């Protein structure tokens, strides 16, 4: 409860906010933990790259969506096309390699995340193609969201020198603020996907100044329901909404990385509260089960080895504890980009900097003797 802040009380709230922020990062209890980074058995000649996403299904199979190889530009006669650069792999519950899914897929350009829904469908989020692709458990494409841009400009046109839109076209951003995106599944560098119990689909969309800054909601049949958010720091605004999770009641948690907070919305996108003091959340997951917890990673920027701890929170924002720090050694984390909550005490952690997936086992009752 300490993490909740009310922005209606200006100065006092600010002081409280700063205090709680420092308090959380310094005083959250250390959760003892171990890691195993060799449980995935990669075949010869397959290399992981940056594991942007990791997820498990009901059988305990593990899916890894990874940045691998390089993105290819191919030159048509009048336009330049982009493909390649991301792959999706499946391992069984013992870590044995099962298969690759989506070989040479049109929408696989730059891996962002993979999640598995309660029906064991595999959902991939790709920020290079700006697409979300749903595979059925057999690995066939079942539904697609968004559309990969047909072609790209080479060299890139900086945003400030974009050509003027043709006369009569709609105002930029649909008149709904920068980053608000289009009405529908026209994403711009999406980051993550989540579902509520009814199967409604929530997409965090997207990254940085060039991308959108919103959440889009679809029903289980893929029909657009609504979108909320634009670029900014107010309630319901985002600065790189990078990760998203939904609890059993349908509340929506958005890791608002650039604003260093987690925003909580009801199922219709109404702002409820925000949690601060947990750093800049890059990855997030909600545990299954009756008592749910929220894990959020204050991942280090790829240019430094600062921060890097992962917080365990009650759904109301109370910090239960934290574990880990940035680094390249065992039990350290190098820009955690993927969190998958297998259970309250078993978490898969995908690290961009270390090209590594660690299976974290927490020992909450383990004498509280600190993690390192």
């Amino acid at each position, binding site marked *: 409860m300490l993490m909740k802040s009310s922005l209606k009380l200006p100065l006092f709230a600010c002081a409280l906010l700063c205090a709680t922020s420092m308090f959380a990062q310094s005083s959250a209890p250390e959760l003892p933990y171990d890691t195993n980074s060799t449980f995935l058995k990669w075949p010869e000649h397959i290399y992981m790259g940056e594991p942007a996403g990791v997820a498990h299904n009901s059988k305990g199979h593990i899916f890894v969506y990874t*940045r691998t190889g*390089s*993105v290819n*530009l191919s*030159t*048509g*006669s*009048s*336009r*330049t*096309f*982009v*493909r*390649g*650069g991301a792959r999706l792999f499946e391992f069984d519950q013992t870590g044995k390699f099962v*298969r690759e899914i989506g*070989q*040479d*897929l*049109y929408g696989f*350009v*730059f891996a962002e995340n993979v999640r598995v829904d309660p029906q064991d469908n595999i959902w991939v989020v790709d*920020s290079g193609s*700006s697409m979300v692709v749903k595979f059925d458990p057999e690995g066939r*494409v079942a*539904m*697609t969201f*968004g*559309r990969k*841009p*047909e*072609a*790209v*400009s*080479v*060299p*890139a*046109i*900086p*945003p400030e020198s*974009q*050509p003027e*839109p*043709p006369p*009569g*076209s*709609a105002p930029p951003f*649909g008149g709904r603020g920068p980053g608000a995106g*289009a*009405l*529908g*599944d*026209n994403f*711009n*560098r999406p980051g993550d996907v989540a579902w509520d119990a009814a199967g409604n689909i929530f997409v965090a969309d997207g990254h940085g100044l*060039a991308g959108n800054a919103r959440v889009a909601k679809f029903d289980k*049949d*893929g*029909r*657009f329901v609504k979108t909320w958010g634009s670029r900014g720091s107010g309630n319901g605004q985002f600065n790189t909404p990078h990760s998203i999770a939904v609890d059993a009641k349908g509340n929506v948690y958005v890791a608002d990385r650039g604003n260093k907070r987690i925003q909580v919305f009801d199922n219709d996108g109404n702002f409820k509260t925000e949690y601060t003091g947990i750093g800049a959340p890059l990855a997030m997951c909600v545990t299954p089960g009756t008592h749910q917890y929220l894990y959020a990673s204050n991942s280090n920027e790829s240019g430094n080895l600062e921060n890097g701890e992962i917080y365990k929170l009650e759904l109301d924002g109370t910090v239960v504890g934290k574990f880990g720090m940035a680094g390249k050694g065992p039990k350290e984390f190098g820009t955690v980009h993927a969190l998958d909550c297998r259970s309250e005490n078993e978490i898969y952690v995908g690290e961009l900097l270390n090209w590594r997936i660690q299976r974290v086992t927490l020992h909450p009752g383990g004498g509280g003797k600190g993690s390192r």
Partner: protein
Amino acid sequence: MRRFLQFLCFTIGILSCARIVSAQAQIPPRPSAYATAPDISYTSVPNFIKLPTGLYLGEGIGVASNSKGHVFVYTRSGRTRLFEFDQTGEYLREIGEGLYAFEMAHIVRTDAQDNIWVVDEGSNMVIEFNPQGRVTMTLGRKPEAGPGWAYTTPPPRTPPPPAQPYVFNRPTDITWDPAGDIFISDGYGNSRVIKYDKNGKFIKSVGSFGTAPLQFNTPHTIASDAQGNIYVGDRGNRRIQILDSDLNLKKIIDNVGAPWAVCITRGPHQYLYSSNSNPDNNDSRFVPVSGEIYKMELDGTVLGKFGKPGKLLGEFSTVHEIDCRSENELLISEITSWRVQKIVLHPSGGASKGSR
């Protein structure tokens, strides 16, 4: 490593910029034929196209059948590829692996002799394969690559160079008259229809960019009837222009929305199908005004309609090509759902009890 990351960032950057420059479209009204066209009952055959493990369709851009009922799918997969399936949808083979002209798939059609023709709007080429899958004719030419050439993409809205007889600018579709003459809609860059003889020799072309009769705004799809009349889906102008085989204008149909895909059935009584597809940018505001396919007599009399936009089986996500070898068994490819559906129409099937 650093260079690798820089390249990735660079690539992601240009993808983002490409997204920014896409303009938002205006919302048109429902086509005027929508209100009065009766609903045609239909079903979608589940999992008709069966892909082997490890093969995936990308944007289901082109679909065509031959006289045996074999199905050809020209797809924007990771790379552009052409697949052949048998009449039950079982996978047979890939054609043209790594072909020089496969850059950005647009359309596949089969001619009366079962030759397979693909139109590629990335390489600006039209390729004929014989039924065995060997290249037998090429139209257009992919420009030569050279140092620095890859970095000269013209800025958006650069006017296209003057149209030339044997050079396309993002061509879109192909059809033939009974004499075997070849008609090509060209295209996104140019705004014209070109006629070649059956040996690929230029005869004439008609059209320029505009809204007047015999002008075009993205001539996107083209089909011919048994009399040699040419039906041009003038998508941006939301009309079908009907030309005779000498490319003189005969008639304009303008009440069935934006024709993304037209198809004319074979047999003694021919019908015309035209899809008022929902746009490929997934703009939800178009859902109430698009997504249906019209069935017409060749004179434009609307007989019925079917379909609506959506991602489920039996719904359509930007229909891009229709194959209508049979009047009531259609093959329909969609851009944004990466699939080909086999649609069975039930025109007399117990009135209009809904579409699915």
